[in-house]
């Protein structure tokens, strides 16, 4: 009789511990998933900002860089292709965004050869904004990827992987910048 009570108490204790562990791990997973989502939102804000700044930059630079039309074209084209994949997955977007970053980098490299342009206050302000936005994208990406790593580890490691499987937590996707590094020369045709 005494033994019966002891067993019942032990069973109840074990069940309670399991429930608490389940709730704790589940909440931890939700927290990490939200962190990943939030980190992605931060990248998104910066990508949007870069997208919005470009027309302004092209407008400012156009007058000075008459001989660099292909560089400017490349930026505009990259911007358009970013727009077309706006609703695609992380992988496709990161590729398009990476290309836009490269095109902008080339534009600023070329701008170094135009002293008049470098004296233009408007251009300098835009350059500060765009290069900083570029930094912000990479820092936000850094944090996003770290968050994804922590989250993925949690969904794959024992014992949280059991709960992740039961309640449908999917692994997060990394935001890699994989640019086909300037392999192809920009094909531009002016008509």
């Amino acid at each position: 009789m005494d033994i019966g009570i002891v067993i019942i108490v032990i069973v109840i204790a074990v069940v309670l511990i399991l429930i608490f562990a389940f709730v704790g791990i589940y909440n931890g997973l939700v927290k990490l998933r939200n962190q990943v989502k939030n980190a992605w939102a931060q990248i998104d804000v910066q990508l949007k900002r870069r997208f919005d700044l470009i027309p302004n930059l092209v407008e400012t630079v156009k007058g000075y860089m008459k001989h660099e039309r292909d560089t400017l074209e490349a930026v505009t084209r990259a911007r358009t292709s970013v727009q077309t994949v706006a609703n695609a997955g992380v992988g496709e977007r990161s590729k398009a965004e990476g290309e836009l970053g490269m095109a902008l980098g080339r534009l600023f490299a070329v701008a170094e050869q135009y002293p008049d342009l470098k004296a233009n206050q408007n251009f300098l302000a835009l350059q500060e904004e765009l290069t900083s936005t570029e930094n912000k994208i990479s820092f936000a990406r850094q944090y996003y990827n770290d968050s994804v790593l922590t989250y993925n580890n949690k969904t794959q490691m024992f014992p949280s992987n059991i709960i992740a499987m039961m309640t449908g937590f999917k692994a997060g996707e990394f935001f890699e910048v994989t640019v086909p590094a300037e392999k192809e020369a920009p094909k531009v045709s002016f008509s």
Partner: protein
Amino acid sequence: MWEQISSNRTRSIVLVIIMGLLLLLLGYFLGIAFFDSGILGLILAIVVWIIMNLIAYFQGDNILLGMAKARKIEKEDYPRLYNIVEEMKLASGLEHMPTIYIIDDPASNAFATGRDPKQASVAVTTGLLQVLNRDELQGVIGHELSHVKNRDVLLMAMCSILLGTIVIIAYYASRFLIFGGVGNRRRSSSGGGSAQLIILIIGLVFMILAPIAAQFIYFAISRKREYLADASSALYTRYPEGLASALEKIASSTNQLKSANNATAPMYIINPFRKQGLRASDLTSTHPPISERIRILRSMAGGASYKDYNQAYQQIHKGSNVMPPSALGLTEPVPLRSAQTGTAQAGGAYESGRRERAREINDLLWKKDNYIMLDCSCGTRLKIPPEFKNAIVRCPHCGKVHQV
């Protein structure tokens, strides 16, 4: 990886608890010595401590910023600084943008404050802004924001309040002693004898030793947090050289910050009272010696993770850890990046020279004082004070007339 810091926090909390016990013991023994009642002393000590905590919690950052004569700036005032703070905010994963302040002082220093990451502030001196390039400033801001992120600001505020309470109580107790409080007490209380004398002596010893012990603990905590903030800064920026060369530049500047005092010293990126030539590794320093911090950062050859920082620390400290190895756990290698300054690649920042920066910052200060800037076509920049009432002004250089 981001929560690893939290396990290291326990050690700091233990030290805070020891400081708290020190306060209680001080209160208790002084209570016995002065009022014949340990409990009364205890209660008094706790009341003083709670009041100071409340003030610090609700007004602490304002007091600190006020003492440092810091002025708030917006993005339009100085986009470069604002952008760098925002970059580091993103890298650290802070959810709220800190408020930015500048201190008009030729000394190079910076600090962070705020009771929680939701309403943090960073303050930098104009001297620092002039001396550092973008990469270096990023390292310094990363260091400051990691104080916010790791909640060091709150921890250090708690410590400095405990320390302050202990110092205040010991100070007033000694005053009391000088003006004969104890003598009267002892004469009026009949009986006692040698037991009371012993307690009185213990009380006296505590009165003298408690502030000193509390200070040592405070400094020990502070130094530890500085190393951790350096490690976090390297991780955020992926570029330890930035902070290393910033520290080098800051260390070589000989200006002392006018608006710092003993209570606010641990908040700054380097000790504002350091003396040249003094080896600062002694126990009474709030900050680790700069040369050592630089050496650790520079020997992070493999990567920018906490593990790499810990390894570099071990090399210099013969095997002791700056973080518990258990907290380092599973980490992916974190590659370093190269310098941004001077390159015009994607992500490479436009960099102005030291002279341009000095001019930018001066203009910023003029504007903060409501001066109006007019650029004349001859290249002169007219700075018109707010008291100027005329509608037009003549350029002193070329004589051209401008509308104000």
